[in-house]
């Protein structure tokens, strides 16, 4: 069997980068599926594109500027109403620093 395009260890590493958790079974299946997809994508290696400019924007455009004028943004309470937890006019999150008592 040819070397896999992506190993189980790589799958677990990428999952960590993407802030996803995978069960053992999910990781095994993900490895198989990504391996098949990446194997198909090897077809791109038939093309020599080293001299071709990449297309990051399909339609050429300039970054537009607008006048720097203050305007109203959405209402804070309405925005916070969609948060899973809020407190004192802000988003409530789990502690990220230790508290010294």
């Amino acid at each position, binding site marked *: 069997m040819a070397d896999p395009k992506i190993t189980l260890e790589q799958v677990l590493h990428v999952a960590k980068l993407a802030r996803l958790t995978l069960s053992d079974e999910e990781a095994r299946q993900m490895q198989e599926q*990504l391996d098949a997809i990446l194997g198909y994508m090897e077809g*791109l290696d038939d093309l020599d594109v080293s001299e071709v400019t*990449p297309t990051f924007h399909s339609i050429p455009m300039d970054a*537009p500027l607008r006048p720097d004028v203050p305007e109203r943004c959405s209402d804070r309470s309405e925005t916070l109403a*969609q948060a899973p937890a809020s407190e004192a006019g802000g988003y409530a999150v789990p502690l990220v620093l230790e508290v010294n008592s």
Partner: protein
Amino acid sequence: MSGFPWQSAFEIRERVAAGSVSAVDVTRAYLARAEALNPTLACFLTIDHEGALAAAAQVDRKRAAGEALGPLAGVPVAVKDNLCTRGVRTTCASKILGEYIPPYDAHVVEALRASGAVLLGKTNLDEFAMGSSNENSAFAHVHNPWALDRAPGGSSGGSAAATAAGLAPLALGSDTGGSVRQPAAFCGITAIKPTYGRVSRYGLVAFASSLDQVGPMARSVREASQLLEVVAGHDRRDATSAERDTGNYLAACDRGVKGLRVGVVRDLIEGLQDADVRASVESALAALEQQGAILVDVALPHAQHAVSVYYLIATAEASSNLARFDGIRYGLRVQGKDLTETYTNTRAEGFGPEVRRRIMLGTYALSAGYYDAFYLKAQRVRTLIRRDYDAAFERCDVVCTPTTPTPAFALGEKTSDPLEMYLADIFTLPPSLAGLPAISTPSGLSAGGLPVGLQLVAPPFEEEILCSASQAVEDGSGLLSTHPTALP
């Protein structure tokens, strides 16, 4: 109400404006049909009974007061559930946004409201618009109204099935790699993917930002063209929105195709395995020629690489865009022992399998050591695909291919093999990668009675050509009055 539910948006607006029917009565009739058929079709994730009737009453009040009515006054419209609607749940068919209520309207939703349209509700989709069959919705599978065991296509499957089934004359979808065109082909309706930048993406939940566009869907080319006229135009809240005048899309439908050079991608059409699709394309080409168009052969030699290029670029952009769903600012939160565990728990619980797969693929393609080999290479090959079209448009005004390699496949047929599902997008991906406007319109029925779609692609901002040419295809097919048979 005569003609219900198949009357056009134009007929509805005319009758409402003339006062021969009230917008409230029209809305009640469509709401009743949507509520009756939704258990079978699963087109809608939310039916906004109250909001729709309030909007209709507003139209009736304006008419009674003698005020000017908008171009879609009293016309019911279904809106894909990845377009933000103020005060109405917007889920993206994902558990992670299951209860999200946006505090603002998308630009296109504002435009609809301003035109007098009545928003009936929010339509089902593949989670975050990632899929080609609607089977990636976290909530329900949409069924194709032409054959209930068939996929409606995706990701705008709910919008396509609702329009085809007469639950609404018009719908909005979004298209990243074919998500309005492919379901339109599967459900026998017309859909337009505008030029990148033609329609504002403000309030469209982002999947792949360099590809996403909002697209109109309708049973006829004229209605889709009218809807495009309503939603197109510059919006400073989307930095990629083009400062271009909106075209006269509806008027373009009556321009004819005399002298129009239609580029035929011969090798793609001859390579089709499905005889029905091949025959349908040939009959559409014959209809175009008969109405005065000139057929010329063109080639898209790099189109065969579109699946690889698209599934690297779109997933890379998605992995970045979907990083915002972390359980902090909106949507689901599954608390962990610390912040990192809260992120991972929330995302593991909130995202379905296909969304996770795409985030994984995109994260991999962007990760250290692989960026050049995958992401950058894909962007280089994208240039070759774009150049293929540049060369084709030296010889023709519009490029013609089928929309899909086959008519609607069966529900469950491709769910176990993601790559198989991706390969079904082969014809819709190249114009998306090149940012070009494209339309799918029905060109025939298969032997089994399923619709087949024809795709036409034009140079940037030349949507008018698509409207003229597709109108000729529609006139030639004679399918406009043919409706799905699998429904009461």
